[in-house]
């Protein structure tokens, strides 16, 4: 089967660092983090360190949406992000050739927590109903797909989009991922004793756990290259796997993640040495980060410069794979490696190459990974194509 080239034609990130991808990348290049201590009983009875979007900024931004009061906070974020991304390439979102894929772990779960204070019908907590709101807003004729696959949802949604585009089912797919910081998830991760009481420190000797984050990331995938751009980013390969080991604990061996990486490399037809940069999941829990180094060892990728963006934006769950992939592709476009925020001293058992200083480097290919509860892993490979290389 001839390989269909899949282009990323536009992208948007909404996080506490900003409401555009450029704002987010700019803040990251200046070493800023959205993770702060919040003393808010609506999130948790005691203070917690999370990356949360300011209500004021969001309330100002949503006024550009029609009938914004009809949408929940997460729906507003999706609508804003999709609008901003599609405007970049004047995409016809209401076309039958356009599909929307949504990645989210918990969607409107905040409606379940406080039903009496909310003005929305109970069924909006269902992801399919939430997706229907987004579909209706854009008058898109296709029922959106919702990928709900723990912390790999974002990367996996790209894999799903790639498959559907390769089948010529659609010309453009909008892949968006989002989750909120809610008491539901904060209390759950606290009960696992998996939360850090300071900005998290992926791969560091003193890492103790995650910060939750909220945000939305949107990418537009297309089978036709964008006009008037000298540099294109393509998806060269992607894959998923399962550890078949434990429902909440990461694998001790890293074999599951290795399998996803191996399959993605094979699909992209490239060797490990063809990867210039690794954008990892790096949650900063002791077990996850150790598992990742084992997988990189098995994949022969230990020497490749790598980072985790969790220290800047927290763990955005269903959005993580998309937001972090977008920052990674901006890394490729800018030929810039960004430091792994919070990292000081190596705290895993294999010699991974954690980026500690912002630096310029000619970059062509990036591998992005994600792993999550349920033993799931996913990997995707992005490549930068310049006019001369096509």
């Amino acid at each position, binding site marked *: *089967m001839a390989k269909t080239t899949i282009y990323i034609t536009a992208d948007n990130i909404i996080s506490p660092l900003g409401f555009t991808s450029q704002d987010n990348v700019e803040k990251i290049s200046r070493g800023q983090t959205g993770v702060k201590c919040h003393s808010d*009983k609506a999130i948790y*009875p005691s203070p917690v360190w999370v990356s949360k979007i300011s209500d004021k900024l969001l309330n100002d931004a949503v006024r550009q949406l029609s009938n914004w009061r009809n949408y929940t906070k997460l729906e507003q974020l999706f609508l804003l992000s999709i609008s901003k991304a599609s405007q970049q390439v004047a995409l016809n979102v209401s076309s039958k050739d356009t599909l929307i894929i949504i990645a989210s*772990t*918990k*969607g409107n*779960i905040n409606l*379940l*927590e406080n039903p009496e204070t909310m003005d929305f019908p109970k069924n909006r*907590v*269902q*992801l*399919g*109903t939430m*997706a*229907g709101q987004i579909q209706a807003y854009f008058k898109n004729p296709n*029922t959106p*797909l*919702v*990928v*709900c*696959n*723990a912390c790999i949802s974002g990367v*996996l949604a790209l*894999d*799903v989009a790639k*498959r559907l585009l*390769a*089948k010529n089912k659609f010309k453009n797919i909008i892949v968006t991922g989002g989750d909120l910081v809610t*008491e*539901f998830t904060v*209390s*759950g*991760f*606290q*009960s*696992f004793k998996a939360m850090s009481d300071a900005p998290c420190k992926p791969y560091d000797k003193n890492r103790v756990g995650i910060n939750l984050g909220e945000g939305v990331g949107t990418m537009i995938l297309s089978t036709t290259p964008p006009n008037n751009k000298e540099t294109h980013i393509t998806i060269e390969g992607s*894959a*998923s*796997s*399962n*550890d*078949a*080991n*434990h*429902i*909440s604990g990461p694998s001790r061996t890293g074999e*599951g993640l290795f*399998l996803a990486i191996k*399959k993605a490399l094979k699909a992209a037809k490239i060797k490990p040495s063809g990867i210039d940069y690794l954008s990892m999941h790096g949650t900063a829990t002791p077990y996850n980060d150790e598992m990742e180094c084992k997988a990189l060892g098995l994949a022969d990728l230990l020497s490749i410069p790598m980072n985790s963006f969790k220290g800047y934006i927290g763990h955005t769950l269903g959005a993580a794979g998309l937001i972090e992939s977008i920052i990674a592709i901006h890394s490729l476009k800018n030929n810039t490696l960004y430091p792994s925020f919070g990292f000081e001293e190596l705290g895993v058992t294999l010699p991974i190459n954690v980026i500690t200083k912002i630096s310029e480097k000619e970059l062509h290919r990036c591998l992005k990974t994600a792993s*999550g*509860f*349920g*033993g*799931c892993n996913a990997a995707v490979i992005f490549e930068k194509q310049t006019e001369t290389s096509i």
Partner: protein
Amino acid sequence: METRAATYRHCEIKNGKIILNGKLLFEKADVPFAKFIKSAYKHFELAYPKFHKMDRLCKLAFVTANLLLNNQLEGYASEDIGIVMSNSNSTLHTDSKHSKSIIDKDNYFPSPAVFVYTLPNILVGEISIKYKIKGESVFFVSNEFNKDMMIEYSEDMIACGDAKICMTGWVDYTEADYHSIIYLIK
């Protein structure tokens, strides 16, 4: 598509009945789900201690998968077995349970054993652990079971070499109702 779906081995559980390829295997009508699924577990001698820790959604998926698979995966490598699942209510039943544990700030008792089941792909994880399945998997949530799309998606995965066999279906549980149907696509 209905005829094509029916050609694949499939197991369905609803209304107190377990049906394999259209044939009634087990029935226990008019009992609550918890009692029904436990009776089925005992009847088929599934003997898997982890079953008792699972939430109801996973128990439903686990029993369906067990009866569907029954040695069908012999000869397939772990990484060649795919799982494509869906439902409409995600993990609503367990979500409510977790939510109730955090309503009262003076009686605050969120539990990791409950919280872990607030992700629907945990049922894929449970099946994967039991059957050592390491291949591609994805969990979709949609208001209706889009059987045609799910089967086509799985057939494509097999056609492009990303899997050799695939479990594909729908597993949904709420306080009011339950329904599972899983196909074995090869």
